[in-house]
């Protein structure tokens, strides 16, 4: 157990942007909300999965919807608390620990708000190990935890509870409610006991985000050292491996709508060759290819970093001429089993590429 204080938030936000792999929303507003909650209610207890008792009542939380909405309709900060109370009232259970369902982007910081408000411990783990666009893309779902009931709330105090028999249907129905709530909703879902949480979660991802932020901050002096420090650091984590897939200059950004997905193709021209890297974006960076070769594919993380600052560049901020490094990060073993790949591997995004883990 350790305490999360206001001073920890900046590193978490920086790391969460890297784990967002281009998507997941800007952690900035999440960081401000978490700061306000800790200032009002005190520091948050961060506990590891190992510290969870078997019979603990764990629930995961976060927000869904368009990140653009959050930039204008800033949350009240009480949304997740209302969703939690709604779940507790209907289920008759008292939740004893909070867990993020998404380690990347905005959702990294929001569970800190709920933990501060309730005084409950925050579990240092999540179900995505990065950012994904849909609620069913969770290791919890992969390893048999029902997504429903999903308790949802908006800032106006509107509440909804989705009961259904599959995670995909829960996503589908919750998405509709989210629209009616104004394009953005907060939710708690994937209720489970402590023993189950230990079995189905990606461990230590809150700490991971914070460590990424710390490593980048400490290596600020020298740009080469910064990327290398990050790569070396990943070698010491349970993710196990990160590598520089390529460097170059953004030379083209093409956007289109394909099978209901908003798809972007970013071309990055290396400094010493005419054969570009091509990154396919569907909310997040999904696959990077060069010529006919697939260099990395989802669920492995593909992060576009500014070559000078090693700061993660979200897809909506990619522009022609930016000098970037493409960093590939292998997901931990729990995220690359056959079952996991069915839920968030290349096929789940309509891609034909085969998943080959980086560095293996």
């Amino acid at each position, binding site marked *: 157990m350790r305490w999360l204080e206001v001073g920890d938030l900046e590193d978490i936000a920086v790391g969460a942007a890297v784990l967002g792999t281009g998507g997941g929303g800007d952690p900035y507003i999440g960081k401000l909300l978490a700061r306000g909650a800790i200032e009002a209610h005190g520091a948050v207890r961060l506990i590891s999965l190992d510290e969870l008792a078997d019979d603990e009542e764990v629930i995961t939380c976060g927000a869904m919807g*368009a990140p*653009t909405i959050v930039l204008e*309709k*800033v949350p*009240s900060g*009480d949304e997740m608390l209302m969703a939690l109370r709604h779940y507790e009232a209907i289920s008759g259970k008292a939740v004893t620990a909070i867990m993020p369902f998404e380690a990347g982007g905005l959702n990294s910081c929001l569970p800190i708000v709920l933990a501060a408000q309730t005084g409950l411990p925050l579990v240092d783990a999540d179900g995505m190990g990065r950012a994904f666009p849909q609620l069913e893309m969770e290791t919890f779902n992969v390893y048999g935890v029902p997504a429903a009931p999903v308790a949802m709330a908006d*800032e*106006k105090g509107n509440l909804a509870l989705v009961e259904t028999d599959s995670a995909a249907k829960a996503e589908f129905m919750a998405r509709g409610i989210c629209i009616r709530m104004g394009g953005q909703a907060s939710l708690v879902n994937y209720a489970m006991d402590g023993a189950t949480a230990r079995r189905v979660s990606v461990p230590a991802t809150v700490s991971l985000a914070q460590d990424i932020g710390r490593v980048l901050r400490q290596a600020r002096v020298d740009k080469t050292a910064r990327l290398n420090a990050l790569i070396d650091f990943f070698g010491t984590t349970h993710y196990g491996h990160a590598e520089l897939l390529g460097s170059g200059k953004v030379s083209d950004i093409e956007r289109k709508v394909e099978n209901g997905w908003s798809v972007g193709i970013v071309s990055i021209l290396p400094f010493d060759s005419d054969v570009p890297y091509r990154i396919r974006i569907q909310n997040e960076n999904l696959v990077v290819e060069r010529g006919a070769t697939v260099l990395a594919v989802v669920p492995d993380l593909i992060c576009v970093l500014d070559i000078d600052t090693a700061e993660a560049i979200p897809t909506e901020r990619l522009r022609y*001429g930016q000098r970037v490094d493409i960093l590939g990060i292998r997901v931990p073993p729990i995220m690359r089993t056959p079952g996991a790949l069915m839920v968030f591997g290349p096929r789940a995004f309509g891609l034909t590429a085969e998943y080959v883990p980086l560095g293996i």
Partner: protein
Amino acid sequence: MRIGIDVGGTNTDAVILEGDRVVAACKSPTTEDVSSGISAALSTVLGESGVAASAIDAVMIGTTHFTNAVIERRRLLQVAAVRIGLPATRGVPPMTDWPGDLADVLGRHCYMLRGGHEFDGREIAPLDEAGLLDVAREIKAKGLRSAAITSVFSPVTAVMELRAAEILREECPGIALSLSHEIGRVGFLERENAAIMNACLADLSTKVVDSFRSALRHKGISAPFFISQNDGTLMTPEHVESYPVLTFASGPTNSMRGAARLAAIGDAMVVDIGGTTSDVGMLMQGFPRESAVAVDIGGVRTNFRMPDVLAIGLGGGSLVRDGGARIGPDSVGYEIMKKALVFGGDTLTTTDIVVAAGMADIGDRARVANIPAETIATALDTIHRMVDEAVDRMKTSADKLPVILVGGGAVLVSCDLPSASEVIRPENSGVANAIGAAIAQVGGEVDRIYAMEGRARDEVLDEAKAEASANAVVAGAIEGSVKIMDIEEVPLAYLPGSATRIRVKAVGDLAMKGAEA
């Protein structure tokens, strides 16, 4: 004829333009009262050219005065920050992420009320008018003279900001009001920050605009005058009195637009080389490309329409090391007249390199005679590579564009650049800022989220274009001259009805009583 004036922190520049021709130009020191500095500059250009004050059709002024006031925390008013949006937004109160000293100066008078809208224009909650009356009473009791009003999704519908303004104006006669939808775009905290900063300048803006007025009157100039804003378009003095914040960062914009006019090119890259840094930006149809990311001003996060400028550590005073392989980012700066080799100093600078190479005649050439030829060649190579890389980085496509060099350090670049179709070095580039102010046009903008489903895309775009054009005419453009400058469509993931954020910008020529085209 028109006059362009640039009131900077150090110098006040003035030019008289007849069409594109520079009739007279000068630099004089900026004064504490602003007014006498402008008067002095006007005396010089009018005197030198013999142009009569009555022959002036319009005066355009660019100023960094308001930006500097915020950065220096000087002459700012206390502000009532009124936010409409509860229960949304409660988690991040007004001025949350501000530097403490600036928030203290403004008094931290924050009020949050129920109201605001969703992305599609539905209400989050009805406007809390009773609460607003309480706020008005407190504003009166505290004696606050300026308020900023920000409502959630006001760029989609401004009705609540307008209604709140009506109430405050009625309850607190004479209060200065800053409405966020008039100032910023989608992006709540940034827009609110801009509205609050605008409100704290309410007093200063009237004083500065008055000093502009009196300086012109003093010189017998009765022509209308305008002040340039950050996107390179003009505002009337009355508009600046209400919205001074819109002048932020007009300096780089004017410099780039001035460069475009001097070179007579609309699409180009501009490299403004000073003593310590070079600013590189892109011109599209004569206007700078705008930055897409949040910009900090005085430590406050904003989303102003600002030119996207890349600053690199290369200038006339940059230090040269490693046999010319490493240049800058440090510079001898204003001490160049003392420290550079050609001026008898002991520091090898870029200026020494170009003098040694015979590309410029500055200082004492004999003092750089023994710099090895290899160092000179390597350093010139490094300089050109740095500029070329910066230019390439700021381009939006692989196509080659002309590069316009301005600023005192322009002499550093003597050869062609691989990323440029040609390199242009215009005359009078020292007063590019004032020229940019003189040629500013009038603009109008729309930035809103549209539901595209069931509608033809062209129909929606036409609607947005018509509204932007109408806004330009309201701002003072000649109706027939208005052109669409820029269209940006961003589809919003996860929203129904193919919601798309559309930004359209239109500009037109200023309607003037004079005959000049």
